[in-house]
């Protein structure tokens, strides 16, 4: 790397988004944003708080705002985000800040559950495993959303989440859509109910920031569109009967 010092600005505190602090961080090869943040905590300011676990993009606990963009920091090479030699790092948007770069992710998961994002099964451990044809449209659709690591990047990217406290958000709705397409799931009615209520799929304006920023290239926007389609269909059906 040509640079040898990075100018890193970090937003501090639970309450003061304005409290920014700058650090000079030595540049190294193969440095990720998480490495930069870690360097600051390990060498310059031991009180800096942030969260990570797997360090390879599997656990979804390290997301932060990097130059105003939500990203998984352990898999974001610093060179990708540098503005000159500067970078500004803040806590993930749309979630309450615990301290510095660590946010409280509970609202995100509460909504996941609220969206009925949990398997509704009829079979038990005493039944054989049901054969599934992986080539059906339903299964292919379900598979497209299955690798979500619940990192909340999409949740942070979405302005509708900011604007509407009740909005379940892209990841939770995508999970509901996956279940709706899962042949093993028996919760169709309750899922449709959950996503048609307050803050459900109809709150989404298809602004697509979720899909644009998902680090795993998932497409919550289309999943939500699927839910809209499905709920509209059942609306007409109910109307007729």
């Amino acid at each position, binding site marked *: 790397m040509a640079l040898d010092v990075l100018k890193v*600005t970090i*937003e501090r505190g639970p309450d003061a*988004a*304005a409290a*920014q602090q700058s650090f000079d961080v030595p540049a190294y090869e193969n440095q990720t944003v998480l490495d930069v943040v870690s360097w600051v905590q390990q060498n310059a300011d031991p009180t800096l708080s942030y969260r990570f676990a797997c360090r390879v993009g599997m656990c979804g606990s390290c997301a932060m*705002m*990097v*130059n*105003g*963009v*939500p990203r998984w920091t352990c898999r974001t090479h610093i060179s990708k985000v540098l503005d000159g030699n500067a970078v*500004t*790092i*803040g*806590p993930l*948007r749309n979630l309450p800040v615990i301290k510095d770069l660590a946010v409280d992710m509970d609202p995100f998961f509460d909504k996941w559950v609220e969206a009925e994002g949990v398997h509704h099964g009829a079979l038990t451990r005493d039944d054989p495993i049901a054969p599934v044809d992986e080539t059906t449209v339903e299964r292919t659709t379900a598979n497209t959303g299955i690798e979500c690591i619940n990192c909340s990047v999409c949740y942070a*990217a979405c*302005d509708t989440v900011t604007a509407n406290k009740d909005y379940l958000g892209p990841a939770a709705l995508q999970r509901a859509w996956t279940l709706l397409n899962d042949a093993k799931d028996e919760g169709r009615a309750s899922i449709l109910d959950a996503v048609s209520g307050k803050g459900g799929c109809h709150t989404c*304006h*298809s*602004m*697509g*920031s979720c*899909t*644009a920023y998902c680090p795993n290239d998932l497409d919550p*926007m*289309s999943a939500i*569109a*699927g839910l*809209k*389609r499905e709920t*509209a269909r059942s609306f007409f059906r109910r109307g007729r009967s």
Partner: protein
Amino acid sequence: MKAAKGITSRAHPLWLAYILHRLSGLALAVFLPLHFWVLAMAVTDPERLDGFLRLTESGVVKLAEFGLVFLLTVHMFGGLRLMALEWLPWSASQKTLAVGATTASFLIAVLFFMRAI
């Protein structure tokens, strides 16, 4: 220094389409009552309506009219795009669609503008 908190990179086509749709919708909602009010003059005060209509000859008002038609077309195509995206089984070409819709609406508006002159 820029705050890291606000999203600074909203500039992707779908977000722009969204904001355009909302702003045009809001603008229409403001314009429509005005439009109705003007038309209602037809009963109460035809002279004033004519006076108002004469104003459309002037460039400024023309531009405003152009803007309104633009809003209406932009909003309509944007809305149709949304409904296509949500209800028609989804295809990856929605971004092209978004851009296409805006372009089409722009063209119609221009067509209107040209013929009006």
